[in-house]
C-alpha cells in the first residue's frame, strides 16, 4: 500500500523497457519462445494474485477463463479475417471485458462460499468449461480442435509480436495491481483477507470488492489465453483448459510471494526458465518433472513465505530500516495479557 515513489516507478519502467528490448537484441527463436511462455506465466500469476493473493480467496478455476479467452479469440476469427495479423491483438481488450462480464454471475454464486469450499467450487468451473469445449461441437469443433488463422509475420522474428503482446498484458496487469494495492479497493481486499467477518461488521462492501477484483483478474487471464491461442494457432479442450497451467501460475505466485506486487513475476522468471532448461536437459522422459518439483520444494523449505517477503525480511534485518517497532509490552502496562 505504498504510494508511488521514484525508485519504484524507475524500477518498473526499467524492467518493462529491458523486457521490451529483449527480442530486438536476442534473435534466437527458441529463446524468444521461452520469453513468451515466461511472460505468459508472469501474467497469469499476476492476474491470479490480483484476486486470490489480495483477497485470500484461493481460486483454482482461473484456467477456465484462460480457456474462455482462447476459445473466444479462436471462434471470433473463424468468422473474421486476421487482416495483417495484428487484428487479434487489437480485439484482446474486448475479449477480456467480455469474459469478465460473463464470469461475474458465476463468481457471485461461487463467492457465497469461502476457503476450501470456494477452491473446490472454482475447480469445478474448470471442468465445466472443458466439458463445454468438448461438447459444443458446433462452435468449438470438440476434441478435433479449433484452428486459428496463421499470421504472416516475418519468419525470422515470428515470435516477437506475441512476445510484445504478452508483455503488454503483463504490464497492464502490473499497473492494475499497483493501482489496486494503493487504492480503497486494495484496502478492502486486504481487510477481507485478514478477517472478512470483521470487515462486514464495519460496513466494508465485501461482495462488491471481491467481484471487482475477480473481474479484473479474469479479464487479464482471458486476454492472456487469447494471445496464447493465437500464438499456437491451434487449440483443443485439454490444452486450453489445462489445470497444470493454473497450478503452475499458482506455484509461481507462492514462490515469488503471494499478495506482493512483484512476487508472481519473480516466481515466473525463476520457475519457467528452470522448467524449460530441465526439459531440454532431461529430454522427453518425465524426470524433468521430478527435478522441477525438487527445485520447488527446496525453495519453499528455505523461503516459506516466498522470495519477495523473505528478501524484505533479510534487508530489514541487515539494514535496520523498515517500520519502527515499539516495545508493545512496556506500553501496554502491567497485567496486560500477552
Amino acid at each position, binding site marked *: 500500500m505504498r504510494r508511488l515513489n521514484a525508485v519504484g516507478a524507475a524500477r518498473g519502467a526499467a524492467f518493462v523497457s529491458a523486457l521490451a528490448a529483449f527480442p530486438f537484441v536476442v534473435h534466437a527463436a527458441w529463446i524468444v519462445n521461452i520469453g513468451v511462455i515466461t511472460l505468459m506465466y508472469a501474467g497469469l500469476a499476476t492476474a491470479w494474485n490480483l484476486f486470490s493473493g489480495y483477497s485470500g480467496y484461493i481460486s483454482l478455476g482461473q484456467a477456465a477463463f484462460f480457456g474462455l479467452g482462447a476459445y473466444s479469440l479462436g471462434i471470433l476469427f473463424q468468422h473474421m479475417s486476421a487482416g495483417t495479423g495484428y487484428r487479434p491483438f487489437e480485439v484482446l481488450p474486448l475479449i477480456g471485458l467480455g469474459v469478465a462480464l460473463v464470469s461475474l454471475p458465476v463468481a457471485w454464486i461461487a463467492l457465497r462460499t469461502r476457503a476450501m469450499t470456494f477452491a473446490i467450487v472454482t475447480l469445478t468451473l474448470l471442468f465445466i468449461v472443458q466439458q463445454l469445449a468438448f461438447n459444443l461441437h458446433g462452435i468449438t469443433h470438440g476434441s478435433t480442435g479449433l484452428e486459428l488463422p496463421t499470421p504472416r509475420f516475418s519468419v525470422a522474428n515470428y515470435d516477437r509480436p506475441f512476445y510484445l503482446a504478452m508483455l503488454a498484458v503483463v504490464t497492464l496487469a502490473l499497473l492494475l495491481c499497483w493501482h489496486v494495492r494503493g487504492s480503497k479497493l486494495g484496502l478492502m481486499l*486486504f481487510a477481507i483477507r485478514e*478477517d472478512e467477518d470483521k470487515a462486514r*461488521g464495519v*460496513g466494508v462492501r465485501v461482495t462488491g470488492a471481491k467481484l471487482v477484483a475477480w473481474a479484473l483478474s479474469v479479464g487479464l487471464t482471458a486476454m492472456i489465453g487469447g494471445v496464447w491461442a493465437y500464438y499456437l494457432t491451434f487449440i483443443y479442450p485439454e490444452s486450453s483448459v489445462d489445470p497444470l497451467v493454473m497450478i503452475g501460475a499458482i506455484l509461481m505466485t507462492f514462490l515469488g510471494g503471494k499478495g506482493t506486487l512483484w512476487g508472481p513475476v519473480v516466481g515466473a522468471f525463476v520457475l519457467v526458465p528452470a522448467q524449460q532448461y530441465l526439459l531440454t536437459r532431461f529430454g522427453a522422459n518425465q524426470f524433468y518433472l521430478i527435478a522441477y518439483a525438487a527445485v520447488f520444494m527446496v525453495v519453499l523449505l528455505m523461503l516459506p513465505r516466498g522470495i519477495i517477503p523473505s528478501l524484505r525480511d533479510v534487508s530489514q534485518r541487515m539494514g535496520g530500516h523498515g*517500520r519502527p517497532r*515499539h516495545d508493545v509490552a512496556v506500553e501496554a*502496562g502491567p*497485567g496486560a*495479557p500477552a
Partner: protein
Amino acid sequence: MSALLEVDGLTKRFGGVVAVDRCSFAVIEGTITALVGPNGSGKTTVFNLVTGYSVADSGVVCLAGSRLRRPNPVQLARRGLARTFQQARVFPQLTLVENLVASLQQPWYAIARRAVSRSDRARALDLLEEFGLVQLADDRASDLSYGQKKLLEFATVLMGDPRLVLLDEPTAGVNPLLVETIEQRIRGLRARGLTFVLVEHNLNLVMRLCDPVIVLDHGTKLAEGPPADVQTDSRVLDAYLGA
C-alpha cells in the same frame, strides 16, 4: 425518548438447544444498556442475530422504527449499527491507521481512490489520539497487546459514525488501566449522543456505567431495570448463584 433498537420474540435453536428463546427487549436512544447473564445465557447469540451474523428462527428486530427483514452486517453497519467481537478482532497485517481507514464507509465510486488520503489519515490519527494509540499509528495491528487490540477495535467501529454500538465484552482480558480508558470513552461518546449495548461480565463496571441492565437467562429476558434494582432481584440472584 424512543427505542432505537427493538427485539421482539427473537428465537434461535442450535439443534435441540434453544440458545435464544422468545427474547424481547428495547434499547432506548441515548442509554448505555447492559446485557448480562450467566455463561450460555444467549448474550452473544442475541448480538449475532441482531447484527445479521446468524439468522434467527423467528422474531423481529427493528432499528430506529424500521423492521430488518434480513439483517445483513454490511448494511447494518452502513445504517449506523456497529459491533465489536468478544475476541478482539482487528486486521493484523494492516497498520493501525489502515485498520481505521478500512472501516470508513465509502461510496462505490471511491474504490479507485487512494487507500489512505490525507483527510482519512487525519481523521484516523484524531481517533487514535483519543484512544492513546497515536504513537503506534504506523505499526501493524499484530504488534499490539490484547488490550490495545480491544481499544483499536472499539476505535474502528467509531470510524463509521454509528448511532448504536454493540460492545461484546469490551473489557474482558484487559488490564485495569485500559478498562478505565474504555469506560471514559463510552461515557464521552454517550454524551455526544451515541447509544451503547454492552455484553459484560465485569459487574462492577456494569453497575457504574449502565442503565438499564437487562438480565438474560436461558435465552430469555429475566429482569430489566436500573442496576440497583436488578442487583437485588431474587430471580437474578438465583440465576447467577444457581440456588
